[in-house]
């Protein structure tokens, strides 16, 4: 959780920067000109985001694992990254507040490392096999974008909130393919004839709060032309704090693959 709030200064910086921007753009925002621009603005119904940020699966927080920390033991604590895309439908506009609607997201992240040998060979404890945990995080959320600041007060900042259901698909593999664990007794003999395949899904929740900076203020004429040519109303960059809490809601056994972290991205409203 501490890691998640390291981005707080970043958001504060964005707010400070945009405060100055408002005065810079005020000359262009006479009422007559603004009204004419609005008249030619295309319809805005959707948003698309590309995001990139660190991803640290919280596997080791599962209570059944105690203090063992298998993820840490295998993959260490180096930063892994996630790339994701989100599509939002701004289904309803709340007057003098913003838009609200559903959004879906799909991402990808993987952690890889050389698998350790059960017994060291020639003094080396590492094998040549690569063991990998691949995660495809998805979620379905309601997105509230509070763009009243941008639309009515001409401050190009759009705070937003997201909340909904998360579902992560995961797969553990090694150089021979999908992992398959076969339990053994003390003598090393298998206790069952079959093994448990290393893949599954984990349900949970997704909560996020973020702040987007509408880049249209940088050059309103260009952005207007971009809108006329492509239908993209707003282009924005954003920072987000997310609590992707995949702990297996309604599941008896689940791999904890959630992530509490920050993410940065580029978005478009159209």
């Amino acid at each position, binding site marked *: 959780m501490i890691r998640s709030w390291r981005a707080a200064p970043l958001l504060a910086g964005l707010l400070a920067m945009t405060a100055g921007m408002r005065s810079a753009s005020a000359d262009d925002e006479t009422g007559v000109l603004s009204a004419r621009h609005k*008249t*030619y603005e295309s*319809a*805005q119904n959707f948003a698309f985001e590309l995001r990139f940020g660190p991803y640290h699966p919280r596997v080791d927080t*599962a209570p*059944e*694992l*105690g203090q*063992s*920390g*298998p*993820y840490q033991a*295998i*993959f260490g604590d180096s930063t892994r990254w996630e790339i994701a895309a989100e599509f939002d*439908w701004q*289904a*309803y*506009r709340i*007057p003098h507040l913003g838009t609200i*609607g559903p959004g879906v997201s799909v991402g990808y992240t993987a*952690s890889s490392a050389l*698998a*350790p*040998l*059960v*017994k060291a*060979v*020639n003094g080396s404890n590492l*094998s*040549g*096999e690569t063991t990998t*945990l691949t995660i495809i995080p998805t979620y*379905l959320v*309601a997105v509230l974008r509070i763009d009243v600041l941008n*639309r009515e007060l001409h401050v190009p900042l759009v705070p937003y909130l997201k909340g*909904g*259901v998360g*579902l992560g*698909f995961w797969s*553990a593999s*090694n*150089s*021979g393919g999908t*992992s*398959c*664990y076969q339990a053994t007794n003390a003598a090393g003999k298998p206790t069952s004839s079959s093994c*448990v*395949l*290393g*893949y*599954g*899904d*984990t*349900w949970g929740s997704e909560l996020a709060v973020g702040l987007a900076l509408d880049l249209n203020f940088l050059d309103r004429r260009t952005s207007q032309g971009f809108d006329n040519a492509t239908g993209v109303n707003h282009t924005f960059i954003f920072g987000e704090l997310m609590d992707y809490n995949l702990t*297996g809601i*309604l599941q*008896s*056994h*689940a*791999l904890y693959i959630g992530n509490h972290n920050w993410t940065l991205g580029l978005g478009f409203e159209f």
Partner: protein
Amino acid sequence: MSFTSPRTRWAARLGAGLGLGALLSLLPRSASAQEGGTSSGSGPQITINPTVYRFYPGTAMKPYSFRAANLNPNDINFQDCDDDIILQFNLTISGLPTTDTIQVWAGTTDCSQSSARELGDGPYCWQVAPPGTFGNVSQEFGNIYARNITRYIGTSTAAAEFDSVDSVPGPGACHTQTTSGGVALTLYFLYMPAGAGSGGTPDSYATYGQTVDMVGPEAPELQLPIGIGDGLLLLNWTPQIDSTIQGFLIYAQDQGPNGLGLGAEAGAATLNTPVYCHPATTGTTTCPDAGAIGDSGLDATTTRDAGCTTVYPDAAAYTEVADAASYAGLTTAELASMGCERGAPVNTITAQPASAGSCTSTVLVDLFSTSVTDTTQGDSGITEGGAAITATAADGSAISATAVGISEIDASVYGVGNVGGNTTSSYTITSARTQSGGSGPLVNGHQYAIAVAAYDDDGNVGALSNLGCQTPAPVTDFFDKYSEDGGLAGGGFCSLEAPGAPIAGPVFGLCLGTALVAYGRRRSRRNRSGRSLAKSTEGQHPRVGTE
């Protein structure tokens, strides 16, 4: 292939240079009087059918399979030579009748010149088919053996007529090429005047371009140590830069637990003679001269005659003694008196445990290597053969050395992988031939000797890489560790187990229903506002979807 005469010889050379020999061969050329020849003024014309069939040697004429199109199926590669295949040429001859005879010569120079077929300054040509192989008829088939074509490549220091004594060259004819890459030979079908001998000038001739490549690519460098996996081994190698490489063959030999299995030994096989003894003592002994020595009818054990034989009621009860060496000094008669006999000598290979760092194999060895190249002149101490190629510079320092040649390892036995591409550099071995025969997964705890060889666009498998040995061993991957630590997840998707599950339907249905309701309400609002806006702002683009 082309038919030409000395007057039009330039055309054939140009055609060969441009790779249009096959096309030109289909064009009949007019023959004319040859220098020093006895032509009647209009010599016979020869056309060679561009399709040259291939057969296994012998009289059965069993068809020999062509290689795949990407492996130059019409070239002669090492395997073609090793099998000494028959190339069957089909000639169409016009301008008959004549008393001329057809001679077939091969070389990298113009064999139509008599000087190329006589002693003098090289390069020279050699005759590849005995006289009479091709008769003087309008449609003629003739067989030429591959080794007769390849036998003088690289050593054509003297012109050679067909060797009638050694008409079937040995395998050495397949090791005459000393550099990698194809050798562009030309077969000359010479229409020689009767009695002209090998040095005469042909009345006319036809040519056939025949590329020979019997040397594979240089050896790749296997990177050591080989990666250990659970029932698998992970290889990486550095390929040589060679555009003719088509892929790599991977070989592995199962050497048993800790390398103690057959084939891993460093020493030679020893000849041992087993001794079998019968446990029973109630056999019937017959001596032809029983009593002749004066004893009580049955010779004493130490003095009885050699002619005595003992027959036991259960012949199958003989068992091999463990200390056969202690019986080595006994004669057969003495053994027989003890109820024993010697078996047939057998070769026994004593497997040696692999000491740290050692890695040997009796089968993953290059049988042939044509040359070793290094970067320094005057170096010495170069050794070749086996898996290791080492070289020592004149100053005693080690230098890099690479070998070119042919790997004659039986890929059907020890081949465990075939990967295409000339820059491929990795492979994961998951199975190999087991010590008991047949293919099976790699066994943890067994040592495997491994080598890699590249093959070229003629299908030649080049020299072996350095040898590597490694033993697969169990590993703990993430999922193993997770499960061993108490984790219970896994086993597949759709793992919701709560009452009323799955939840996916209700959740997504709820969200979708909400969204559709909102969308419908919004469209109806939009339509109403659009109609009213159109009335008040004629000609203006209405705003939709934004406030």
